[in-house]
């Protein structure tokens, strides 16, 4: 099948939904004030993008999400590797992880606002907390899964403990770590939009919420659409990066299979 046809066959459900969104408000069953058709929402979104308003809000949201995720990686990956390495540390940290997991991290936003005020810091802290747990867990599993023989041979050739951890364990755990980052992207997005709906002065979540309050429903839907598109784009971009970054893993696995067979 030609690439165009494959692309179309993948996109057709979206076209169906788009058509429904366009036609349903026009039938008169719902007022077009309440549910503007897709064309007017898309037009509004384009207009807001041109004036720079949507990019401004998106930039604030992305800044918070990325900052939180970076902190989570900087804290979570080393911690995950250390826990994977030291059973004693694991026994100590594990109950804290288990206790912390069930709490939805956006619930920490009010507490962090008491501690850090209503600015970006409280939101970034909440995002970091939300992302750090899945990252620690996936990194831990990645570190545990490293082939012991590779580690022993590295040690036997005189590698220092730090080099072993950095060059071998980190590289071998990379697929799991990147999976953790992928989860982190979705989690950071969810947390930042939630935080902005609860208390913020800018950001995509704020945009959606405030336009609901002022009754500007086409902006509200345009903002929601922007959120979905940005989230999808970030996830797709990272998945593509992951496939490339982990190509050597797949290649070495293939080579192993050929050699062993």
């Amino acid at each position, binding site marked *: 099948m030609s690439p165009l046809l494959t692309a179309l*066959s*993948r*996109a*057709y*459900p*979206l076209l*169906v*939904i788009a058509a429904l969104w366009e036609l349903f408000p026009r039938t008169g069953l719902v007022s077009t004030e*309440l*549910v503007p058709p897709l064309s007017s929402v898309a037009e509004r979104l384009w207009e807001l993008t041109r004036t720079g308003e949507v990019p401004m809000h998106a930039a604030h949201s992305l800044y918070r999400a990325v900052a939180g995720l970076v902190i989570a990686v900087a804290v979570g990956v080393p911690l995950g590797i250390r826990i994977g390495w030291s059973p004693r540390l694991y*026994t*100590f*940290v*594990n*109950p*804290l992880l288990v*206790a912390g*997991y*069930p*709490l*939805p991290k*956006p*619930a*920490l*936003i*009010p*507490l962090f*606002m*008491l*501690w850090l005020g209503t600015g970006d810091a409280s939101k970034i802290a909440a995002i970091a907390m939300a992302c750090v747990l899945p990252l620690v867990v996936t990194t831990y599993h990645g570190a545990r899964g490293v082939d012991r023989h590779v580690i022993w041979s590295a040690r036997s050739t005189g590698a220092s403990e730090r080099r072993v951890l950095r060059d071998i364990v980190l590289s071998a755990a990379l697929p799991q770590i990147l999976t953790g980052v992928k989860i982190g*992207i*979705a989690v950071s*997005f*969810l947390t930042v*939009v*939630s935080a902005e*709906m*609860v208390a913020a002065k800018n950001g*995509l*979540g704020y945009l*959606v*919420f405030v*336009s*609901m309050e002022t009754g500007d*429903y086409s902006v*509200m*839907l345009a*903002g*929601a659409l922007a*959120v*979905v598109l940005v*989230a*999808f784009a*970030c*996830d797709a971009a990272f998945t593509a990066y992951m496939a490339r970054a982990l190509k050597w893993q797949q290649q070495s696995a293939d080579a192993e299979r050929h050699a062993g067979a």
Partner: protein
Amino acid sequence: MLGWLAGVLPLLLVIAVWEGIARSGLLPKVFLAPASAVAARLIEQLAGGALLFHAGNTLFRAAVGLALALVIGVALGLRMAQSRGTRNFLGPLISLGFPAPKIALFPILIVLFGVDHLPKVITVLSGAIFPILIMTFAGATAVDRACVWSALSMGSSTRDVFWKVTLPASLPYVFSGARIAVFVALLLAVVAEMVASGEGLGHYLVYSERMLETADVFVALTTISLIGIALDKLVTVTRGLVLCWAEEVEVTL
């Protein structure tokens, strides 16, 4: 016995440090309410009925949304495994919808349905359905072909194969998906209540923060955590009862 103690020790340590710092006067009072004060407030709110009222609301919304997500998600997941048409239609929608934060839908739902239970239930449903649908589909497609063929060769109808082979084989996957769905359901219910609600634990949390009632903020957080732990335990225990024969399935979303 010792293992249990080792599990609890870090938490007790954290609580002890928490109590110490809160009482030391190092931080302004609004920052940290001592663990003892939080415990006292918790009992007070519990006895007064306010906590049960809020928790009941949150649980109701999460549970209804979750139940709907289970019914619809399992049905769609199984259908997707059987029918290429359904798979081709729902696949791209799932890929698009999965990374998106479902809470962004909430204001739209408020506009359409007001600020009562319905918009929150729909938000919970929209989030919880994804892990269930995806895992059910994964389970239904992972059924060992050999089992299906044996059943067919022994004269089972396609209906029997579905109910007696495919469905039971998919259940471990459904449970793994349900475990995540429970987490998502509680998250969305609480966040929706934080954004716009007159009652519920999310509302209680945000309201207490605005009133600078730090002890109540901690009470809300503790209650939400306990509910999260309880729900997760519920899923694992149910799984143990229903699926004592099956191994744990790793979740791949």
